[in-house]
């Protein structure tokens, strides 16, 4: 049985980007999202540039042919939230799709943990909304 933690938090010092305020205020995190997108590309996977979604900077990767998005959102200076989500419409609940999602989380956890620009990386489960029970890696095998 595998337990996944698809919400992350970390600290990072990236140059402060300009916040767009034309119609919708874009939150901070574009530079961080760009860095993570390039990190995924270096790991050998296709990943698009980030764009601003409903509330976060999101970049879609084609990981083993499945579309998986990560989102970055900065609330306080130097502190960022991260979430990961499978974007497929019909088949995200299949065991094979879940297996690939777990592999993506393992890859992201490894890469983030190895990159010294990201500090205090911790992960949380869906149910831990208040982020009270952090773990060090996004996948745990029982």
């Amino acid at each position, binding site marked *: 049985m595998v337990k996944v933690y698809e*919400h992350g938090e970390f600290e990072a010092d990236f140059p402060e980007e300009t*916040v767009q*305020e034309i*119609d*919708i*205020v*874009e*939150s*901070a995190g574009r530079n961080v999202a760009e860095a993570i997108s390039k990190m995924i590309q270096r790991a050998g996977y296709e990943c698009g540039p980030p764009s601003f*979604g*409903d*509330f*976060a900077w*999101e970049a*879609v990767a084609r990981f083993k*042919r499945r*579309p998986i*998005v990560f*989102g970055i*959102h*900065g*609330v*306080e*200076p130097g502190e960022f*939230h991260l*979430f990961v*989500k499978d*974007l*497929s*419409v*019909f*088949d995200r609940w299949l065991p094979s799709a879940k297996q690939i999602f777990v592999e993506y989380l393992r890859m992201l956890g490894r890469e983030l943990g190895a990159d010294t620009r990201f500090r205090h990386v911790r992960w949380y489960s*869906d149910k831990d*909304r*208040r*982020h009270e029970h952090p773990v060090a890696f996004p996948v745990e095998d029982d």
Partner: protein
Amino acid sequence: MAQASPNRREPESMMEFVARRGRESVARLSQATSAAAHDAYGRATRTGENLHLPTTDDVIAFGADLMSGGGRNRPQPPPSPTQAKRQAAARPAQRHAARPVGQPSPPRASGSNFFNDLNRNPYVKAAAGYTGLIAGQQPGMTRGAMHMAEDALGAAVFVGRALSPQADQAMNPPGRRVPDQVLDTGKAIAGYADRIRKDPTRLSHDARRIGHQVNVALNPYATPSADTAVGEFLRFRDVGKNHGELALNVALFPVGGEAAAASKIGRAARFAKATDYLLPANGDVVRYLAKDYKGLGHHAILPRDAALPDWLGGAPVPKWIVDSPFNVVQFKGLTQGEAYAKHAMIDKHYYGSGLPKKLSARGWSANKAGIDTQTGIEQVWNGTPEATKSLLGAVSGGAGSLAREGNDGEQRPW
């Protein structure tokens, strides 16, 4: 189709009149000869010609024209500035749908044209509008009941704050403390009375203006019809919701005076939940969060970047589907702060929102506001777009109506 009220003894109410008129309109249209209807629709879909029917009366007249054997399309006028904007806005979505160059076209391409044509068909528009009117009734009554319950709860919180003035002082910035809000309400009433005293004609002017607003809110024929069936469904649905809430309010009027009086302070208390953690030092942020919500809403069913499976081409789901009101919770009528709080309740991925740089805080955090994501049926209900809930309600309500008709032979719109 059975008429609504041949044997009724009591006078017809306004809601009954509107429902009867909607039924009669649909009945007239559906009685058109199928040959004439298919001919006009087939011609429009083959040539891509748009049927210019800007109002509901035009739709009905077009149906009558077909029934009388005319069967001709009206001349196509040049697009209005609004239509031109809509067409321009539709173009990127079409490009998006056709984007994967060198890959097999996803099978939805021909389907898009079919649905677009269907969406603009006058018969479908009329039927969708009627469905929306009925669909809005129950959510409107639910909305009315929820407003009353929330307002009662909010009023209790407000009274609690009034009884703890020290906590009120510590938690809320100037302008949002209990005495300030009571004072503001009193000032507004006194100011209005003073303006009426100086200019007595203002009262009749305001009464006319309110009468116009009531007409727009409750009469589906007081506003221009939408270009598409989806638009008509939503327009009539909003009117239907107003009918539903009005019906509940009228029914509870003898006991509802207190609830109505609590309305404004209840809303103030709901807003306080989203902003209290920011404390008085961030008064500018609180003022920003009190403005009307501007944003993309929450893509509830399909994510914003949703993709089709590989075996269907793997292309992005068309924007007009992903961004449709059936997929997006739009937070209409809420302030920024209320919308953020609701978003946090229904979306487990939402942490907060950015704030303009000129303000004293960088962002609004759901965690710091102490707002938890809902779970189970509560999350499903609140996280489903209003339009989708209305449509599902109409489908289930329609099935119920058919069952009733089968039993007693009488058609009852609600």
